């Protein structure tokens, strides 16, 4: 009798304490974010930085680029400089997306092979062997969607291995290079149309600024030489050019040409095998002419 009563007290006391710990439901109305919330937002390399595939997908919506004319064979430079190798991974990944859009299986295989060579130089190839084989297999089977997914997964796996090896700063370099190479291709597409189709899709000054700021924060030893400062400078100038709400078509065209030329020059610099003096001779801003070729868009009409 007594035991039953005390058992009831025990249950009630337990339930009472649990109920007291449950706060009332908060207001569910949608409110704007506060400045501290926006400042403190998480920035994740794998999600906050769009993949080149995303840029190209957006461009496919507004125009129909002739991707086959945009495929550029690239060979990884012979270098032991880790910062350059990290940048090369980004450029190669973007090249891979172009090859996928062009449905050029051989080119995807070449990109995969080059990525494996670079990964080996970076010491991150062990976990990538399976990825490399998958790229080859999907290319053989013309499985373009799987190839696109696999390219992003391969790039992320390289980045994850960099993080595991305490080389987190290299990840920023890879992302920056992929973005720059993607922008080089994308601006070429935009410039090939008389009405600059796709210009609105490329208005991402915040991202360029953010990547430039991240490059500013990497250790000095990685910023030696011309390469990393050139990448950062390109991102900063791109951010400024994209930020200005210019509406004059001619001025806009000049602006996109400048972005394209800067990106093109810095990509060449990344893929350049450094001279034995370790001082690259090619300035990223010395390119006098635009490599833009008219007619890279076959059917510039909205779908």
């Amino acid at each position, binding site marked *: 009798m007594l035991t039953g009563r*005390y058992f009831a007290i025990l249950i009630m*006391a337990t339930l009472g304490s*649990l109920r007291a710990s*449950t706060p009332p439901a908060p207001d569910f109305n949608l409110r704007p974010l506060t400045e501290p919330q926006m400042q403190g937002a998480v920035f994740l390399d794998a999600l*906050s930085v*769009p*993949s080149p595939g995303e840029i190209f997908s957006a461009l496919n919506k507004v125009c129909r680029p002739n991707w086959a004319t945009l495929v550029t064979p690239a060979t990884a430079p012979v270098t032991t400089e880790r910062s350059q190798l990290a940048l090369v991974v980004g450029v190669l990944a973007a090249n891979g997306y172009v090859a996928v859009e062009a449905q050029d299986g051989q080119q995807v295989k070449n990109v995969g092979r080059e990525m494996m060579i670079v990964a080996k130089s970076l010491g991150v190839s062990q976990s990538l062997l399976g990825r490399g084989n998958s790229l080859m297999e999907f290319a053989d089977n013309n499985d373009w969607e799987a190839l696109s997914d696999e390219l992003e997964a391969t790039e992320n796996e390289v980045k994850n291995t960099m993080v595991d090896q305490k080389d987190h700063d290299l990840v920023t370099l890879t992302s920056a290079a992929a973005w720059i190479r993607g922008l080089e291709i994308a601006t070429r597409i935009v410039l090939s149309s008389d009405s600059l189709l796709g210009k609105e899709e490329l208005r*991402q000054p915040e*991202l360029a600024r953010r990547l430039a700021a991240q490059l500013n924060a990497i250790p000095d030893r990685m910023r030696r030489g011309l390469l990393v400062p050139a990448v950062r400078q390109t991102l900063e100038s791109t951010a400024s050019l994209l930020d200005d709400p210019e509406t004059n078509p001619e001025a806009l065209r000049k602006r996109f040409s400048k972005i394209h030329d800067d990106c093109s020059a810095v990509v060449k610099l990344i893929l350049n095998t450094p001279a034995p003096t370790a001082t690259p001779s090619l300035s990223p801003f010395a390119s006098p002419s635009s490599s833009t070729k008219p007619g890279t868009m076959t059917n510039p009409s909205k779908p």
Partner: protein
Amino acid sequence: MSHKRLILQAFLMLVSLMVAYGTLIAQNAIPSETKVMEPIPTESRRLSLETAGAFVNDGFRIRDGEWSGKLSGGAPLILQVTLFAGENYWFVAASQANRIPLRITVYDATGKPVKGLTWHDPFQEKGERSGSRSAAGIVPNQSGKYYVGIEFVENSATQNGPIDFSMVYCYK
């Protein structure tokens, strides 16, 4: 006799307080933060990828990356993303915790909420499926920086402590 009763009463009250305290500790504990390695993939990630898989059938592509962490009631977490005008996006979040009303909100660069589509798992609300899933879809009308907020509302049916969540996004 009354002395024995008093001792028994005091003992039972002590036990009840210990049980209640233990329950609270268990709810607020964050055991996985002290773990050296998370299981790969986590159950929350598996659920978010499983849910996003439905969008893949509709031509969407899932980004390879994942945003994961611990979510507390009433305290939204915010992720910065870069979106393209005219693209279709679905942000898919899931938690291994059962029947948690997850809410995903997309905000523009100024922090204003952007109108879009929302999806909640009907099976989860009926308690017919384990875990919790939710999704928000938008088609931005301008390219640029956006924010994705994720939160859950505590009520008598949900737990109080932090819950694991995983978010992925897909685009087409």
